[in-house]
């Protein structure tokens, strides 16, 4: 069993209306100098299996076909054996396997 954390965010160069709205709201709270806010999605799941490579391939398929829309979103995920830590949501990026999407070149933040 593996615990998986999937992070989905708007692709670079794709306008992010939510991020823009949050960015406009922060100065009202007295936080100035904040830029490039991107609002994404954090998904956790548990996947049965013993083979980390197979789980990685499965999760990548899930991400490409449903959890993210690769046309407008990037994703990456981390997997760690379940039970390696208590069931709390504590992340262990150091020991986790991390996979990142974006084999294709990113469009440049444009003018």
């Amino acid at each position: 069993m593996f615990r998986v954390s999937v992070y989905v965010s708007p692709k670079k160069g794709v306008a992010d209306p939510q991020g823009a709205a949050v960015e406009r709201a922060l100065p009202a709270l007295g936080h100035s100098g904040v830029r490039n806010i991107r609002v994404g999605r954090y998904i956790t799941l548990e996947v049965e299996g013993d083979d980390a490579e197979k789980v990685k391939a499965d999760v990548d398929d899930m991400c490409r076909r449903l959890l993210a829309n690769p046309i407008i979103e990037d994703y990456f995920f981390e997997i760690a054996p379940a039970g390696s830590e208590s069931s709390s949501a504590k992340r262990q990026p150091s020991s986790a396997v991390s996979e990142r999407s974006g084999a294709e070149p990113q469009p440049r933040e444009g003018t």
Partner: protein
Amino acid sequence: MTSRRVRFGIVVFPGSNCEYDTHHALSTFSEAEPYYLWHKDHDLRDPDCIVLPGGFSYGDYLRTGAIARFSPIMREVAAFASDGGLVLGICNGFQILTEAHLLHGALRRNRGLRFVCRAQHLRVERTDTPFTRRLRVGQVIQIPVNHNEGNWTAGVDHLQHIEKEGLVAFRYCDPEGNVSDAANPNGAVNNVAGLFSEGLNILGMMPHPERVCEAILGGTDGRAIFQSIIDTVLEP
């Protein structure tokens, strides 16, 4: 002349809410025979045109249309479309068609995060298609929009291809037909309001033509789209 009627299969997903409007609008055409399909059906029952109606399929969870795309019936809809069958996606139906990769691009939250519900002018971009043959290029029609995720976008390469191939069906415009940012209700790239597939047999559009099919409801500009489909089937 035979009395053949044009069969419109309207797919109902959990959370669809424009299927009755669509059925009612089609029932005002003497040549149309609308009927409902449930998203778990496997048999499309010999349609001439499949309509994916507006609404909030699966509560818009994850992304609009993302889960409906995997409904059992979508496999049949994709096969029907790949054989050249006519498919019309309205609002949430458009979102489902992009998620299913039957149409280019994706639909994001509206610019300004504002739900828009208003009458909207559209400029007709192309009329040599099964959905628009009753219209004129450059004609301005008025069809209401009612959505939160109508902000269409596509990658730069796709966008160039889409424009080069003339796959844009309608653009948001002002009453005079000027395609401007001020007339854009949601931030859609190039003011795209409706889009054809490569084969021109699929149309996705954010505005709701089924809501302007009777004068008593405020307009009749939507009729030209349904009439075009009927003409295409009866007089190909």
